[in-house]
């Protein structure tokens, strides 16, 4: 006996829109069950986790502060992921942005420098992140190096550079040799939006970035180019789109936005440089980008939802004395439910006997994959897989993107060992095929 996923012929817009809502409900029910089994009131927990923070002005501000860096990074990653390019190193670009922008803050510290300091810091932050993001792009374009590995490795380079600087040359001379810089002057601090509370201008930057991205991805030739490059590289080539230029552009954009997130966080929230300036925002943002289905509005909601789980988790510890592990488990549960709901919206789950394989290339009940809009696939020579038709919808590509990532990494490993480019067929034989197994 085994389980099989077959693509649904039609996926209604309503089902797709309701999937995340259903996922949240299921996640809350399961979490509530666990809390009930622990002998606590699930209703009180829900109150503290969700309705409490959402009805408290202070908590809403904190929610926005927490979501800002994650939204900024995730929105940039959407450009890369849409073009089927894998920037895993946003954390490093974040640090480099903070580093270059922070340099100006330290340089002007104690001087009479005016209010021009923080705007220039923001620009330097964008430049730092963008230049750092261009390194893996350049290596890919020039030498064909996998951007997945280089961008990830460069995270450690960035973190250790910051570590070195805050312990060494940039250390606060009056700080008893503790590894942190001086605290930034008011001129180098991002202004807050309200008289009370910590929400700063960075949240406005994030909102602008989201709106601009919605426009660019939905309404411009560049946005179209990304989609075609990501979903049908050959078509993009025939269409005259230069894949190398696309790679450089999306890495510069996502690096720049991650860099902006870094300097925004350092200037608006932390107020100084120190060896650790991120609890892993660059990696959490990858999850958020996919939770938001690479859609700008979706990313906005996803970043707020993830921020809510962090804040709710702290409230639960303070008000209900529930352990942190429960929050971590809930975050995982939520992600699992959202992914599962999306899979079930796009695919039909069925139990089949092992002896009873569907004929190759043919879906059940006469639904040939190629006959269904968006269900057909083509395999390219380089082994990665792409949709031929465009009608498949975001949910499916959302499901497939992580699979593609795993596939790409596996293919890379194989190439690395064999020393020769692999053929399409051999690339991932053991992978369960949600398409009903076979080529159109």
């Amino acid at each position, binding site marked *: 006996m085994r389980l099989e996923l077959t693509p649904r012929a039609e996926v209604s817009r309503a089902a797709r829109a309701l999937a995340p809502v259903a996922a949240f409900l299921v996640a809350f029910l399961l979490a509530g069950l666990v809390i009930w089994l622990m002998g606590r*009131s699930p*209703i*009180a927990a829900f*109150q503290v986790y969700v309705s409490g923070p959402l009805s408290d002005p*202070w908590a809403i501000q*904190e929610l926005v*502060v*927490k979501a800002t860096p994650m939204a900024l990074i995730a929105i940039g990653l959407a450009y890369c992921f849409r073009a089927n390019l894998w920037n895993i190193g946003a954390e490093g670009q974040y640090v480099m942005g903070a580093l270059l922008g922070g340099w100006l803050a330290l340089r002007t510290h104690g001087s009479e420098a005016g209010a021009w300091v923080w705007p220039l810091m923001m620009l330097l932050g964008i430049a730092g992140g963008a230049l750092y993001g261009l390194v893996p792009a350049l290596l890919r374009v020039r030498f064909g190096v996998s951007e997945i590995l280089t961008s990830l490795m460069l995270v450690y380079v960035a973190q250790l550079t910051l*570590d070195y600087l805050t*312990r*060494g040359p940039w*250390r606060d001379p009056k*700080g*008893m*040799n*503790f*590894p*942190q810089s001086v*605290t930034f002057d008011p001129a180098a601090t991002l202004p807050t939006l309200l008289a009370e509370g*910590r929400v700063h201008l960075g949240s406005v930057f994030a909102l602008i970035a989201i709106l601009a991205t919605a426009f660019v991805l939905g309404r411009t030739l560049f946005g179209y180019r990304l989609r075609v490059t990501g979903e049908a590289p050959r078509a993009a080539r025939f269409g005259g789109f230069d894949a190398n230029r696309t790679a450089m552009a999306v890495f510069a954009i996502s690096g720049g936005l991650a860099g902006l997130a870094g300097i925004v966080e350092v200037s608006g*929230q*932390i*107020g*100084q440089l*120190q*060896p*650790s*300036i*991120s*609890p892993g925002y660059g990696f959490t943002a990858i999850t958020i980008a996919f939770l938001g289905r690479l859609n700008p509005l979706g990313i906005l909601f996803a970043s707020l939802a993830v921020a809510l789980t962090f*804040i709710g988790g*702290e*409230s639960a*510890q*303070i*008000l209900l*004395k529930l*352990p*942190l592990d429960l929050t971590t488990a809930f975050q995982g549960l939520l992600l699992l439910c959202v992914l599962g709901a999306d899979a079930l919206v796009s695919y039909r789950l069925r139990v089949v006997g092992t002896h009873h394989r569907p004929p190759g290339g043919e879906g059940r009940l006469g639904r040939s994959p190629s006959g269904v809009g968006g269900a057909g696939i083509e395999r390219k020579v380089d082994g990665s897989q792409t949709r031929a038709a465009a009608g498949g919808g975001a949910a499916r590509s959302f499901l497939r993107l992580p699979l593609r990532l795993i596939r790409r990494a596996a293919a890379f490993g194989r190439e690395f060992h064999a020393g020769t480019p692999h053929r399409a067929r051999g690339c991932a034989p053991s992978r369960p095929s949600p398409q009903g197994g076979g080529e159109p």
Partner: protein
Amino acid sequence: MRRILGLAATVALALAAGSAGAQQKLKIGFIYVGPVGDHGWSYQHDVGRKAIEKELGSRVETTFVESVPEADSERAIEGLARTGHGLIFTTSFGFMEPTVRVARRYPNVKFEHATGIKRAPNLATYAAKLHEGRYIIGQIAGKMTKTGTIGYVGAFPIPEVVAGINSYFLGAQSVNPNVKIKIVWVNSWYDPAKEADAAKALLDQGVDVLAQHTDSPAPLQTAEARGKMGFGQASDMERFAPKAQLTAIIDDWAPYYVARAKAALDGSWKSGDVWGGLDSGMVVMAPYKNMPEDVKKMAEETEKAIKSGQLNPFKCPLAKQDGAAVECKGTNALSDEQILSMNFYVKGIDDKLPQ
């Protein structure tokens, strides 16, 4: 449906009653950098929290938030301050700036920051003289090593840790002039996998007695598995390594926490700085085990000498790595400030301090 509504009403009532009753009680909050189950630093602070509950019972209510990232801690600290907590302990150096900022916004809340250097009328600091214990375990290590090489797993090269390494080495050198030390940095307070890897790397390089300034028992467990020796850190870790643990340096925050909670209750709380050592009971040595009688006797005598003030681990003259003498700003020893801002290795340590 009615049942659910009824339940909701009960919960609302309970919450309201809770906040009304809390006005007479003192609510005390704790921010931990690691999980409360790290069996080291954060665990030991939590032991202090429980001691407050046990001692003061119904007069207090305590809360903790664990594994708070240092770069994003302001919200958690403020979360405690605005939910009626009157006394808040932030228990890691990295919480300093956020604690300062929140303390400024909540002048009526009392704050206590561990291992910090910034104070305010409502913000006190406290720390333990761990380096006193390090001198004792250094002497034990110097006696117990057969290879002549002792090891140290460090978290971050901040003054507190560097002073610990120096004190450990000076102790070893005082009984074994040719002893060598190897140091590995983990760059984390709590990361059992990395800590164990660091310990393995040290043991592979011929180290046979291991000390650590990280929070989990992993290095000590590694020593136990390899049949080598080591020391517990922050709490008594004997149950994790009954054959390997020679002793442990225990941070006993309980008496301080209880005293401060009492002071906050009766209104005598004042900001200040406390740096407690073996004599004040803030640093306690676990029973000396797995060693010959003469080594045990030496350790006990050293402990007594430090307690009585006869012996200072950083007594002068003291030479830096290059042999240059360190200026003595205290009486026949380094001043507290010199120890708290230490950023050099003493002579004989054949390594480079990362900075």
